[in-house]
C-alpha cells in the first residue's frame, strides 16, 4: 500500500529531484528559520536587561583622594581602581622602556591626566582582584598592584611586568567632568 504511494510520488526521478523533495526541503528550511527566529527572544532575554544597562556608568568624586591615595569604586559589578599617583610613581611609569613590556603601551596612552590612573581592578590572568589599593597591601616588585592568586605584578600604570597575566589591567572608558569629578563608562 505505502510502497505504491511512494512509487507514484517519486515517479519523476529523471532530473534528480522530485516535487516531494522540493516540498520537503522548503518545509525543512521554513521550519529551521522559524525555530531560529523563535529561539532568539529566549537567547536575547539572557543578555543585559534595560535596568542593567541603565547603571552602566558611574560618577566618582575625586576631591577627597589626596596624592598617594587610592579609591576603589564599583562599576558594572566590577572594581575600578582609581589612584592619585605621586610624582615618583608617574616618573616610574613614564620612564619604562615600552619595547620591553609584555603588552607594550605608554603611560600616556593609558591615562587622561598623568596624576590619575584609572584601571579595571581585575587581573587579566584569571579574574582575581589584585592587591595594592590599601597602604598596607603588597604592591609587587613594580609599585603598582600585585595579584595574590597567581603572583602577577603590575606597575604604577597598571601594566603587567611579571607573572602569568597576559595583558595590562584594562583601562575603562572615562572622562573628567571637572578637575575633581570623573565619569566612568
Amino acid at each position, binding site marked *: *500500500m*505505502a*510502497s505504491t*504511494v511512494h512509487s507514484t510520488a517519486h515517479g519523476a526521478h529523471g532530473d534528480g529531484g522530485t516535487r516531494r523533495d522540493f516540498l*520537503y526541503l522548503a*518545509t525543512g528550511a521554513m521550519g529551521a528559520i522559524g525555530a531560529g527566529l523563535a529561539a*532568539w*527572544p*529566549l537567547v*536575547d*532575554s*539572557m*543578555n543585559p*536587561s*534595560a*535596568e*542593567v544597562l541603565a547603571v552602566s556608568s558611574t560618577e566618582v568624586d575625586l576631591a577627597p583622594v589626596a596624592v598617594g591615595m587610592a579609591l576603589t569604586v564599583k562599576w558594572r559589578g566590577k572594581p575600578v581602581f582609581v589612584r592619585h599617583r605621586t610624582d615618583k610613581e608617574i616618573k616610574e611609569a613614564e620612564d619604562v622602556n615600552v619595547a620591553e613590556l609584555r603588552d607594550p603601551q605608554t603611560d600616556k596612552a593609558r591615562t587622561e591626566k598623568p596624576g590619575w590612573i584609572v584601571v579595571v581592578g581585575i587581573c587579566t590572568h584569571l579574574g582575581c582582584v589584585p592587591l595594592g589599593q590599601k597602604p598596607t597591601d603588597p604592591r609587587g616588585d613594580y609599585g603598582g598592584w600585585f595579584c595574590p592568586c597567581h603572583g602577577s605584578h603590575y606597575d604604577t600604570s597598571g601594566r603587567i611586568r611579571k607573572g602569568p597575566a597576559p595583558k595590562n589591567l584594562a583601562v575603562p572608558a572615562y572622562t573628567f567632568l571637572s578637575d575633581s569629578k570623573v565619569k566612568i563608562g
Partner: protein
Amino acid sequence: MSAPAINNRFLKWFDDRLPVVSFMQHELHEYPTPKNLNYWWNFGSLAGICLVIMIATGVVLAMQYTPHVSLAFLSVERIMRDVNYGWLLRYLHMNGASMFFLVVYIHVFRGLYYGSYKSPREVLWWLGLVILLLMMATAFMGYVLPWGQMSFWAATVITNLFSAFPLVGEPIVTWLWGGFSVDNPTLNRFYALHYLLPFVIVGVVVLHLIALHKHGSNNPLGIPHKGPQDSIPFHPYYTVKDLFGLGVFFIVYMALVFFAPNMLVEPINYVPADPLVTPPHIVPEWYFLPYYAILRSIPDKLLGVIAMFGSLLILFVLPWLDTSKVRSARFRPIYKKLFWVFLADCIILGWVGYNPPEGHFIVIGQIATAYYFLHLLVIMPIVGKVERTRPLPDSISAPVLKGAHKEKA
C-alpha cells in the same frame, strides 16, 4: 511499509551501540497509524508541543524571577519592562498555559467521543489523567508566582480546601504553607515545585506514548486495524497533518499573545498581594471554573471538596463505567447525543463557576453538578447496556473501498 535503512556509516555505527536512530525510525517514521484519523487526532501532538513551549519559556523566565514575597511582584514587572523580550516570554508562558489546557481538554473530549479509553487502552487513559492532574497542580502553583492579589487569594483558597478533612485538615494546611498563612515559605516551595512538575509531566508523557504505541492510536471508527491495508506510516502522512494543525494552532495562540495577552487574566492580579484585603470577586483561571462550580454548588465544606476531587478521580474508572462494547460514538446513536449534553453540562459548570454564587446560578450549578455525576455514574453504564448500536464496518478500509456508507460524524 518499512523505513529506509540507515545509510550514514557513522549513524549506523552509533545506532549499533545506542539504538536511538532505529527507535526514532520505528516510532516516528514507519509507525503504522490508522489511515482514517481526522483532525481531532492532532491534539495529542499539539499538547506535546505546548509542553515544550512552556518548559522553554519557563526556564528563561526562571532566570529572571525572584521567589520572595517582597520581590516577586516587582521581578515580574521587571521582566515585563526591562528584560529583553521579557514581555513576550511572559505572555507566551501565561497564555501558553491556557492554550495547553484548551488543547488537552479537546484531546480528552476526543477520547470520550471515540471511546479511546476502552480496552486495551485503559492504562493509556490513566496516564493521560495523571498528566492532567499534574498540569493542574503546576498551573495553580505557577499562577501564584506573580504574587498579585489573585495569586495570593487563589493560593489561600486552594490550600484551604485541605482544611475540610477532619482531624488531619489543619495540620496539613499548616504543613502546605510552612507557616500559619500563605507567606514566603509557601511562595518558595510553590516555585520549586512549579519548576519540578513539568519534568515529571515529561516523564509521564513518555509513559503515555509507550502505552499508546503498544496498541496504536484509536480511530474515528473505533475498530482495530486489521492489516497493512488499514494503516499508513506516521511519516510523512501524519507528520504533515500535525504540522498543518500546528500552523492553525499558532495562529490562535499568537493572536492571543499579540492582540489580547491579558484577556484571560483577572486585572486585579496586577495589584500586589495584600494578605489583609480579599478582592470582592474571586475567580480561578478559566480552566478550573467547572471544578470551582462543583465545589461551590455543594453547601457542605467537606462534601464540596470531595465532589470536586471526585469529579476528576471518577474518570479513572470510566473504562468500566462505560459498559458498551462499541468504542466510537458514531455507532452509538443515544450516547452520541448524550456526549454533547455532557459537554454542554461541563461548559455550563464553567459559566456558573465564572459568576458569583448568587440567585439562579446556585440552582443551575447544583443541577449541572448533579448531571455531571449522573452522566458518568448512572447514564453511561445503563446506556452501554440498553443501546442498540449501529453495525460496525468490517475494517477501516471497508467503508471506503465499498464507496458507500459515508459516515456523518
